[in-house]
């Protein structure tokens, strides 16, 4: 049901997979990005991308063009390309921001990427052949707070951002020099008749009528007609563009969630401070409801209390009982969630990483067999 790997005691800030999932890039909560290669059931460190000065905040690996983009609190982003010798070569991207970059995402066609930052703007970057450099264009208005999360519409033209001013905004990320605005049929563009120029605000949603805290994670659905987001008020929301931007909000009874993704046309997985991925269903009547938790691991029974353990525990923590383990796979908050196999319309596997330094790969098909009331639709 779930494969778990540990990468030491440091938190994993973020992670990204290569195309065939044989390698993973992750940052151990510092300025480095480590690339591990899978060997049977083990991971071997094969590359260290060491170019940033401050903590890496985002990694994304473009599967088809095999390029890695990283961004960090040092206000820089690098695009890494692999040479024939297997080493990665960085190219600096001038983001023109005066605060830390917070998140980065390749567009679906991999010809541009977006970086969110504390400078209250989104940089949309693309490669300019004539000058041989990455150009960044800014989406500024009406953002007045840090961008916490980003996601691309499958049509490569629209971008959704989660913000710390309790709002979710949908922007056009159309770059004139690069592409044709070939998706005027999208319900997001209905009002404007097309995506409009870069930075056109296509939709805006408030996380909650009563405030609602920061938005931590956003996700476009597989067909691009819906977005879901999670906020610091432990809520999950879905906005449906094909139904006139109706927002459905569910206030849950759990700790706040950090990330969310669509795993099927009507299913959402969320994960965060409660250390356990949860499945929610968005049914045809527009109701959002709790389906099940995906982590059914049992608490490990301590195998008796050996004298050795007893004294070790007394020595280290001054108590005999030493059972602080959670009954979930992750032992601390989950901060990252990536698609592992399948597509957003039907994810078969996804991976989570967290503050406990663990990376877990969850198999939806096996989970569905193991969990009674779990339905994927």
């Amino acid at each position, binding site marked *: 049901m779930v494969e778990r790997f540990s990468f030491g005691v440091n938190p994993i800030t973020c992670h990204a997979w290569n195309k065939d999932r044989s390698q993973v890039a992750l940052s151990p909560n510092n300025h480095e990005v480590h690339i591990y290669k899978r060997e049977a059931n083990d991971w071997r460190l094969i590359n260290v991308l060491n170019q940033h000065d401050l903590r890496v905040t985002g990694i994304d690996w473009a599967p088809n063009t095999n390029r890695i983009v990283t961004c960090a609190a040092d206000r820089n982003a690098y695009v890494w390309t692999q040479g024939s010798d297997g080493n990665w070569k960085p190219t600096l991207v001038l983001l023109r921001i005066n605060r830390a970059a917070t998140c980065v995402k390749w567009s679906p066609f991999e010809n541009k990427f977006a970086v969110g930052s504390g400078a209250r703007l989104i940089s949309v970057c693309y490669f300019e052949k004539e000058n041989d450099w990455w150009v960044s264009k800014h989406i500024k208005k009406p953002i*007045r*707070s840090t961008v916490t999360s980003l996601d691309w519409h499958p049509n490569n033209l629209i971008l959704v951002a989660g913000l710390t*001013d*309790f709002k979710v905004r949908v922007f056009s990320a159309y770059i004139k020099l690069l592409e044709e605005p070939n998706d005027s049929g999208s319900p997001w563009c209905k009002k404007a008749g097309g995506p409009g120029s870069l930075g056109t605000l296509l939709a805006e949603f408030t996380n*909650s*009528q*009563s*405030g*609602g*805290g920061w938005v931590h994670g956003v996700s476009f659905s597989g067909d691009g007609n819906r977005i879901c987001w999670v*906020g*610091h*008020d*432990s*809520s999950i929301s879905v906005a449906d563009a094909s139904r006139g931007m109706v927002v459905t909000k569910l*206030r*849950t*009874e*759990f*700790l*706040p969630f950090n990330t969310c993704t669509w795993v099927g046309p009507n299913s959402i997985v969320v994960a965060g401070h409660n250390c356990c991925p949860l499945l929610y269903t968005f049914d045809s009547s527009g109701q959002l409801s709790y389906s099940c938790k995906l982590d059914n691991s049992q608490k490990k029974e301590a195998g008796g209390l050996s004298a050795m353990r007893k004294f070790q525990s007394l020595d280290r923590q001054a108590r005999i009982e030493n059972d602080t383990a959670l009954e979930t796979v992750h032992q601390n908050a989950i901060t990252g969630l990536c698609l592992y196999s399948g597509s957003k319309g039907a994810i078969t596997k996804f991976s989570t990483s967290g503050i406990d330094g663990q990376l877990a790969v969850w198999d939806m098909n096996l989970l569905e067999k193991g969990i009674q009331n779990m339905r994927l639709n």
Partner: protein
Amino acid sequence: MSINTSSSAFRKIDVDQYNEDNFGDEDQGELQSPPVGPDESEVTSLLNQGKTIDALKTVLRNAPLASKNPQVKDNAFNLTMKVLLYIKGSQVEEAVSALDRDLVDVLMKYIYRGFETPSEGSSGHLLLWHERAYSVGGIGSIVRVLTDSKKA
């Protein structure tokens, strides 16, 4: 780490003060809930008729959370406390289960505000309310007390 880690004075420097177009909380507030708050005479008459649960629903549904007027908020808070303390311990469970989830969140906000300004014997009674509200709304309900900018 540098030796100065204990000093947190740098956090007080407002690095954003020279930005134009700063984020302001005030333009957040289109007033959602009625700004006047619950009607005191209506609630009192409900209490006198013994319809305590209806009284509770009335105060919570009309809670002026979005109001900017501290006087209105204080009045509503005092009235809510009156209702909460009026309802007997044995009725608390029934009362909480009669509320929908949004009202439980509002109730939780008033419970925590009640803890801030205790009166004689109020905290013990509020703990009872808290236990029941927690069992319905879960930890998410407490998170929303902390997160929501529209407070009790």
